[in-house]
């Protein structure tokens, strides 16, 4: 009896769900690398999340990237994946009473971290503020270009990734492509990022930037010392930001970040927050310190201070 009832129904039942499913699968298959793509493209396509890679898999990924960059840039580029140092949490200090807004840090950062020249990406934005208005971001100007700085009646506030302890950017990432490392650096796995730019919208400091196009960097200007989570050449369609020069600072001994080295007035301080004798702890204890947009409770590890 049941057989007779079901006999009139179509053999292939095309529900709305099934149609959508098969269309999606079809598009998915089209999006996969074509059959004549090289093995490295397949490997990149099926690469695991950075934090799920075994030691051997990571080694293979780094070797694959180095080979790809060699072909792409025509020179040797090393890609490290140096892990965080034990007992280290990085902190940064910027002396607003010293900064003159000369932008040496901005351009030092671009060179060190292989930022795109065209279209232009700057990880550091120097704001010119008016002394009589104080820290009033509504009146900030970052296109200033007088013959000489500092300009009378103004002070300068360079802004970059604040390496928050409670970052909004990592919280909104739908694929967990960005996270906080044990040494406090907020990093991005460029191979896992899907380019949705939620993190850019979430960041209250405008610290994240998007690769709209493939970065055009003259091969001679490329910094060949790179880190997987830092300054390696980025693919199109991913976000990027300051990493406290992860490729420099995670070494033993570790160089100061490029912006610290570039600063002509010594306004920039960098060190280990867990070292009580270090310069960051000293400035936290003895200077007038503030953090940007404290009311958002993002808990930055980037401290602005007044030494005088």
């Amino acid at each position, binding site marked *: 009896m049941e057989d007779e009832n079901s006999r009139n129904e179509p053999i292939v039942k095309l529900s709305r769900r099934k149609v959508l499913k098969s269309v999606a699968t079809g598009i998915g298959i089209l999006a996969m690398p074509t059959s004549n793509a090289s093995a490295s493209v397949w490997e990149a396509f099926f690469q695991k999340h950075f934090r799920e890679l075994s030691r051997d898999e990571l080694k293979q990924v780094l070797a694959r990237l180095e080979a790809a960059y060699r072909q792409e840039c025509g020179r040797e580029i090393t890609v490290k994946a140096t892990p965080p*140092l034990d007992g280290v949490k990085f902190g940064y200090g910027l002396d607003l009473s010293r900064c003159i807004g000369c932008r*040496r840090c901005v351009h030092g950062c671009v060179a060190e971290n292989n930022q795109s020249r065209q279209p232009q990406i700057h990880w550091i934005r120097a704001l010119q503020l008016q002394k009589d208005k104080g820290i009033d971001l509504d009146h900030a100007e970052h296109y200033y270009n007088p013959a000489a700085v500092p300009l009378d009646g103004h002070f300068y506030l360079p802004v970059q990734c604040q390496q928050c302890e409670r970052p909004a950017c990592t919280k909104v990432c739908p694929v967990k492509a960005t996270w906080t490392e044990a040494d406090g650096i907020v990093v991005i796995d460029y191979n896992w990022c899907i380019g949705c730019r939620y993190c850019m919208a979430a960041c209250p400091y405008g610290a994240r930037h998007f690769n709209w*196009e493939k970065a055009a960097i003259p091969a001679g200007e490329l910094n060949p010392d790179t880190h997987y989570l830092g300054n390696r050449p980025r693919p199109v369609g991913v976000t990027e930001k300051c990493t406290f020069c992860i490729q420099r600072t995670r070494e033993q001994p570790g160089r100061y970040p490029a912006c610290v080295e570039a600063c002509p007035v010594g306004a920039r301080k960098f060190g280990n927050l867990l070292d009580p004798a270090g310069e960051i702890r000293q400035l936290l204890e003895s200077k007038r310190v503030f953090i940007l947009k404290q009311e958002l409770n993002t808990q930055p590890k980037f401290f602005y201070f007044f030494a005088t």
Partner: protein
Amino acid sequence: MRALTILILLVMPGTVDAAGLGVPSLAQAAGENNLATPLHRFAVAAPNLSEGIFPCSDCHAGMTPDLRRRELQDEHAAISLQHAAGQFWCLDCHHPENRDTLRMTSGESIPLTESYRLCGQCHGRKLHDWQAGLHGKRTGYWNGDKEYLLCTHCHNPHDPKFKALKPLPPPARPGRTGH
């Protein structure tokens, strides 16, 4: 009343110490140096001297020091002393006998590589901050060897105010980059 006095006495040393800005830890940070002992142990960059001016004894060796304050006419006329509103003159800081060295107010002669001690006689707080790495600039490694820039690398001792700089180019305005 007595309990209140004791309470105040108990609290007072703590507040005084907090106002002392952690002096002992700063001293530790600077390699067990403190302001009471000579500061010898700072690795500093080579002093930045004008071309062909040093050693001073090349010219001054045979001269008898003229201790009178005066306008220099023949040599060093280009130096315009804009430090402490005219209170200084050459031999307050340059040693009159030991010409290649500097002179502390005590009369002690110190090498140019220790000029921070000389500056620190007036600018004590700055010297304090400099030792801890808060004032001035250090290069090298955040967790390794550091090299201090001397005061004179950034401040011309004869005219110490930091000079204005031309800023590097501003960012491109969106929409005008032609992309």
